[in-house]
């Protein structure tokens, strides 16, 4: 299919449709309301479901009910809305159901602002709601990658029977870029062929979809079943990209999403100035490319590792853990909707290298 120019938020909506994600529940919030405005027209064309809920608490729980059908279900929201969905996310994880949550992150805490930020990293990767569970978290850095990862998110949600989050930011949502989609809408599996959805118990034993286990042995068993899935994700789903990571790199940048694109500009400019810097861009934030970061960071030529984020320092804790104290781990970040400029990142790198 030919490339078309599309706004990030609309491309995300179309990507979900192409992935067979035809069941959408949402509540408006800036900076992602265009997704719903796009889908309210698009979904009826393909026999899909669009429900504007009364709150994000309800959205999350509608997804819970809808996910139990075995069909592909999703929502999009932004930070304060995602906070309200944490109850349902915890239950959906506990009940082993697939659902896709797309967070077009804005600055927080509280009502915060409406401009792009990466301050929901902890919430997305460390649980967010109560209980022993994780989300698989995908972080796109271009509109095309947002399209690809949204489609992948549905496959992974169904592979693991676990909620998957796509963690974008306001920049990805608002940017116009050329994107390409698969020709047709993906044919998804018939829930009648699955052994878990609530399809009505005609001809089989009834199914109970729940997260309640009053017997501690049973609850522990369910928690370890979840833990096994997260272990498998760590083994099979780590995704990342290296940019100009060379044998003479002095500083290894770790950055994701929109921020990683700016880091690429920094790297290109510094290369011309004779300073070799490389980037490892995590694409999955959970599972985190911990071993890959360690491998790169421990190389002789690396003098320091720098986590660059649109936050006051969240992912840096995971980078620190990966590097295990062998190399200095530095942090540079701006937040509140302020996106660090290439110049400030460059200055910080030069400072680390004692050149400023």
């Amino acid at each position, binding site marked *: 299919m030919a490339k078309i120019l599309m706004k990030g938020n609309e491309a995300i909506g179309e990507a979900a449709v192409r992935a067979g994600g035809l069941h959408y529940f949402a509540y408006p919030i800036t900076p992602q309301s265009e997704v719903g405005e796009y889908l309210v027209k698009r979904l009826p064309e393909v026999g899909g479901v669009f429900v504007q809920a009364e709150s994000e608490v309800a959205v999350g729980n509608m997804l819970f009910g809808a996910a139990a059908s075995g069909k592909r279900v999703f929502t999009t929201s932004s930070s304060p809305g995602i906070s309200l969905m944490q109850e349902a996310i915890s239950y959906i994880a506990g009940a082993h159901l697939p659902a896709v949550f797309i967070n077009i992150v804005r600055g927080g805490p509280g009502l915060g602002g409406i401009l792009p930020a990466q301050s929901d990293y902890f919430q997305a990767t460390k649980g967010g709601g109560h209980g022993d569970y994780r989300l698989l978290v995908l972080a796109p850095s271009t509109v095309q990658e947002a399209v690809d990862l949204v489609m992948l998110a549905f496959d992974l949600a169904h592979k693991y029977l676990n909620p998957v989050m796509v963690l974008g930011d306001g920049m990805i949502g608002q940017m116009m870029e050329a994107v390409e989609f698969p020709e047709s809408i993906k044919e998804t599996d018939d829930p009648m062929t699955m052994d878990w959805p609530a399809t009505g118990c005609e001809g089989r034993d*009834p199914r*109970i979809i729940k997260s309640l286990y009053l017997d501690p042995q049973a609850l522990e068993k369910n928690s370890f079943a979840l833990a096994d899935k997260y272990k498998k994700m760590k083994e099979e789903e780590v995704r990342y990209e290296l940019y100009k990571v060379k044998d003479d790199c002095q500083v290894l940048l770790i950055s994701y999403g929109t921020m990683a694109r700016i880091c690429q500009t920094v790297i290109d400019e510094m290369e011309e100035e004779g300073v070799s810097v490389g980037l490892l861009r995590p694409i999955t934030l959970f599972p985190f490319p911990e071993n890959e970061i360690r491998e790169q960071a421990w190389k002789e030529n690396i003098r320091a590792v720098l986590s660059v984020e649109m936050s006051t320092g969240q992912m840096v804790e995971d980078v620190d853990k990966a590097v295990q104290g062998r190399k200095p781990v530095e942090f540079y970040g701006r937040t509140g909707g302020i996106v660090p400029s290439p110049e400030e990142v460059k200055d910080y790198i030069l400072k680390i290298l004692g050149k400023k």
Partner: protein
Amino acid sequence: MPEAKLKIFERPKSFTDVVTHYCPGCTHGIIHRLIAETIDEYGIRGKTVGVAPVGCSVLIYNYFRTDFLEAPHGRAPALATGIKRVSPELIVFTYQGDGDLASIGMGEIVHAANRGEKITVVFVNNAIYGMTGGQMAPTTMPGQVTTTSPMGRDVSQAGYPIRMSELLSTLRTPAYIERVSVHNPHNVIRAKKAIKKAFKNQMEGKRFTFVEVLSTCPTNWGLTPDEAQNWLEDNMIAFYPLGVFKDTYYDNDEEGQK
């Protein structure tokens, strides 16, 4: 002629062969049975999905031979909305207590009703939080003693009890709203009729149906089962009048929406 024995009472097919955990004299079990009989009589067991609340009846899914989802506290109408919208061929019902529905779940029930979700809600009003040990509910009677209203519900602080059937019947969209009770056989029969009618409405594709059932909690009311039934009749019915609050058969509301 043993074959000629007439079976006049048996377990509904939609029930599992499990003894419930309810306290002696609790009327949750009667309400369960009315739903199970309804499912049997309409032959819809294979396409029914129940949504359990958080409350004493959270384990309802162990007692029914239908698919079941277990919702977070108060959110059953949202789950029911989700599954019914994506699988409209199913018959979906929620079963919710008064803390679940009228307190923490007030937002979800009002909006599910107002959107006209094609689900059936069985609302069990026992004027108290049973599961957590007898705290005040939004439906607790004025002056009623609970563990969080030890001097009796003080309406100057807590307001008057919420009448859910009346409140929801102010909405234009719902198809059918009735309040019934199960404190004596006569009322049990009426309650069965209401539940059957609600399910029938849903099977016919009509919008939101709601049956409020006044129910006893002898344990937390501190009464014997007999006393609890009398207390319900003497105290609750005056404040929570029984009857039909909304029925599209009469007001033809679906026409009005065109």
